[in-house]
């Protein structure tokens, strides 16, 4: 469903991605692991054309993304929901208007919008009363839930999660992980989750990719990840620096 080939991206003189190849099958959840600053979020942004690659191709549902102009990306963005790291809720609007935003943009009738809002709030485990609150009145975990509700409002076929558990306490992190799992089951969506939190990764992922120095260094299932022999990937999984590793041997 989503395929990135040979993606290169530099910001100024700083090269972030140096040939990323990644493929996500329909209905599966791929977790992209990597250290902070390794380009995981940048990779994710390429999928819906928020960032354009210097070289390489991005294909979503058979359509090329990278060559499209902004207005021609709308059809792809309606198919792929994006959960931003901090939620990125619009501060100036209440929860209701935040969730209604993509529905109004998609030209849905008012009645349908009115019915859809409590429905998606229910899907993310929030009461319909939350709709009246402003984003500033929500806790970190609730903001993520509302942002997820907004991302799934137009019923996308894929959801991209950018660091979904960063900045949350362990209990809230677990509920968000459970939510990601329930999205997969109930909505049968394809997902990409970007995270450096290994616990969260194994809780939600079917397949894992490890991004290091601008390239994908490993891809495979959970079993393959756990028995991987790659030194850098092992060190990352075990939370060690490579110097520790070198010191040991």
């Amino acid at each position, binding site marked *: 469903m989503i395929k990135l080939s040979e993606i290169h991206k530099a910001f100024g003189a700083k090269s972030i991605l140096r040939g990323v190849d990644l493929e996500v099958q329909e209905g599966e959840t791929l977790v992209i692991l990597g250290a902070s600053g390794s380009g995981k979020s940048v990779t994710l*942004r390429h999928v*819906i054309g*928020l960032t354009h690659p210097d070289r390489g191709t991005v294909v979503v549902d058979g359509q090329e993304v990278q060559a499209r102009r*902004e*207005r021609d*990306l*709308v059809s792809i*963005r*309606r198919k792929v*929901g*994006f959960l*931003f*790291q*901090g939620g*990125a*809720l*619009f*501060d100036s609007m209440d929860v209701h208007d935040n969730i209604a*935003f*993509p529905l109004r*943009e*998609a030209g849905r009738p008012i009645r349908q919008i009115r019915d859809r809002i409590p429905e998606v709030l229910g899907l993310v485990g929030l009461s319909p009363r939350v709709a009246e609150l402003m984003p500033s009145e929500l806790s970190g975990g609730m903001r993520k839930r509302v942002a997820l509700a*907004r991302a799934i409002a*137009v019923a996308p076929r894929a959801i991209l999660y950018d660091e979904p558990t960063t900045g949350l306490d362990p209990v809230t992190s677990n509920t968000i992980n459970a939510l990601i799992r329930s999205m997969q089951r109930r909505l049968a969506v394809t997902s990409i989750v970007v995270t450096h939190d290994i616990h969260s990764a194994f809780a939600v992922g079917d397949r894992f990719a490890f991004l290091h120095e601008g390239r994908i260094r490993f891809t495979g299932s959970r079993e393959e990840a756990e028995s991987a022999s790659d030194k850098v990937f092992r060190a990352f999984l075990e939370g060690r620096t490579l110097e520790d590793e070198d010191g040991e041997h």
Partner: protein
Amino acid sequence: MSFILQLFAAIGQIALLVLDCLRLLFRRPFEGGLIVEQMHRVGVRSLPLVAITLLFTGAVMALQVSYTLAAYGAKLYVGSFVSLSVVKELGPVLTAVMLAARVGAGMTAELGSMEVTEQIDAIRALGASPIKKLVIPRMVALMIMVPVLTILGDTLGILGGLYIAVAEIGQSSDYYWSKVREILYVGDLISSVGKTFFFAFFIGIIACFNGLKTTGGATGVGRATTNTVVAASVCIFISNFFLAKLFLFIQMSF
């Protein structure tokens, strides 16, 4: 050298932003609600600031003219001095500078905060255009409200002069108004208001551009906001000179 390159890069990016605005301006939906909301924020809420600025400027002009220039017999011409200077220069320029400080800074801070918290990206990700949703309503509101505020400001400036002329110098208000009417032509009013469309454009485009280009968290927002006030004010003052020349040339031609 790098400063000049950066300046040209910014001018190029602003030109692209203007083209995007023009391209999307007449495309449906027209976002009338957002435009009205911005007109309220830009216009109605700035009214007290513009009113105070111009009322006192008109008054102090009258004071200075009648006392400092008394030896030249200027007391009799307070109405002429005040109305001409307020309508031709002080009204449009002060209104624009006050709005650059109040509204321009506010717009950059708002859009800048939205940028650093990924709200601008969220608008794009949800299938909408930040230019259509954020930039165009602000530009349109400024282009409508800056001229309106200038007309009100001009009027209040002249009224400020009137107060001094009547209360301090002892002129009759009829005499003051006769001097105002004697010196002001329709052309002066047109050039006064005409300039403000350009000022509004500069404030809006610089404020939105700086907001959308903000990087680097809270510090970045602060820097972008300062940039907006400085750049917009400088643009207003420099363009005012050339616009004054242009409008004088046009007035002379008729």
